[in-house]
């Protein structure tokens, strides 16, 4: 692991976290997890009737994939709902990790950052390792760190929108303000080029779902995202050149044939 990612003291080779929802079939989900080479997948909890074994067969598939799970509180609209869902997830999935979502707006699925901070504080106090789904707001980030979060997960764009980075200045600013905190862009990426762009900004990882699961070929797209993430990370480490406003010849000017002005 020359360039390992560490999240809550767990070292990882992969910088791509993958959601497990909306795949054409369980078999394609399993193949996509392998193709992405992901080591963390997100999962959730939903109501289930007696006699149904749907949840269990899904859980078996995930365990067989060998990936670590990051349960979410998707769809929760209040602090209470999010906290209770996290507690239920910890028992079912056997992990203290929780992707904390407290949704504040139905159209954009924008997080309710006030509820998010409050829920994070409660869950950290209860022993959880909280991965908060947040906006790129610097003050919210500071308050989440104060609450005990050791990873932050800003959005790039609304969940499932596939728009890519909406506010590159905001994400760049967040990266600059918190150079030591693992930052994972969660939500809104649509193409591997978006993932590469995020990684080139110095983000530590990306989390995505719909861009893979709703692609025409989810398995091939999972592979493409893995390449995009790796390319972006390699580019960041290689220190990209600074953009300029005017041209600068790449071929040496001195010695050009027909150059009458030179000796």
């Amino acid at each position, binding site marked *: 692991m020359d360039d390992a990612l560490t999240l809550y003291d767990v070292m990882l080779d992969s910088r791509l976290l993958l959601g497990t929802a909306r795949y054409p079939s369980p078999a394609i989900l399993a193949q996509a997890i392998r193709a992405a080479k992901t080591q963390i997948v*997100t999962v959730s*909890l939903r109501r289930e009737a007696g006699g149904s*074994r749907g949840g*269990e067969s*899904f859980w078996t598939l995930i365990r067989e994939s060998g990936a670590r799970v990051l*349960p979410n509180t998707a769809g929760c609209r209040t602090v209470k709902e999010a906290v*209770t869902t996290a507690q*239920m997830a910890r028992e*079912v999935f056997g992990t203290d990790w929780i992707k904390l979502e407290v949704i504040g707006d139905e159209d954009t699925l924008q997080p309710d950052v006030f509820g998010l901070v409050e829920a994070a504080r409660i869950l950290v106090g209860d022993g959880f390792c909280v991965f908060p789904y947040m906006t790129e707001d610097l003050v919210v980030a500071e308050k989440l760190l104060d609450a005990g979060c050791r990873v932050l997960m800003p959005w790039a764009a609304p969940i499932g929108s596939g728009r890519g980075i909406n506010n590159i200045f905001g994400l760049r600013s967040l990266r600059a303000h918190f150079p030591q905190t693992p930052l994972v862009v969660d939500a809104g990426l649509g193409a591997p080029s978006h993932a590469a762009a995020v990684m080139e900004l110095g983000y530590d990882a990306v989390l995505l779902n719909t861009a893979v699961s709703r692609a025409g070929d989810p398995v091939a797209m999972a592979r493409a995202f893995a390449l995009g993430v790796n390319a972006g990370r390699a580019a960041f480490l290689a220190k990209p050149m600074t953009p300029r406003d005017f041209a600068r010849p790449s071929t040496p000017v001195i010695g050009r044939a027909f150059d009458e002005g030179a000796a």
Partner: protein
Amino acid sequence: MRIRVNGHERDVAARTLAALLEELEYGDQLVATALNRDFVRAKDRVETPLRENDSVEIVAPKQGG
């Protein structure tokens, strides 16, 4: 006794959360439970009484993003 289970009203005979899971044929399904929006650990279900108009959530693993 009338309670809500996963958002639906139903009449049940069970007087505890554990008995409710048995009555609704959950058997050994992997589920987590909440009573009136508070988490109830699996090991506490036997001693968790149900009362009229209680609201119970019973959830299981599901795909998520």
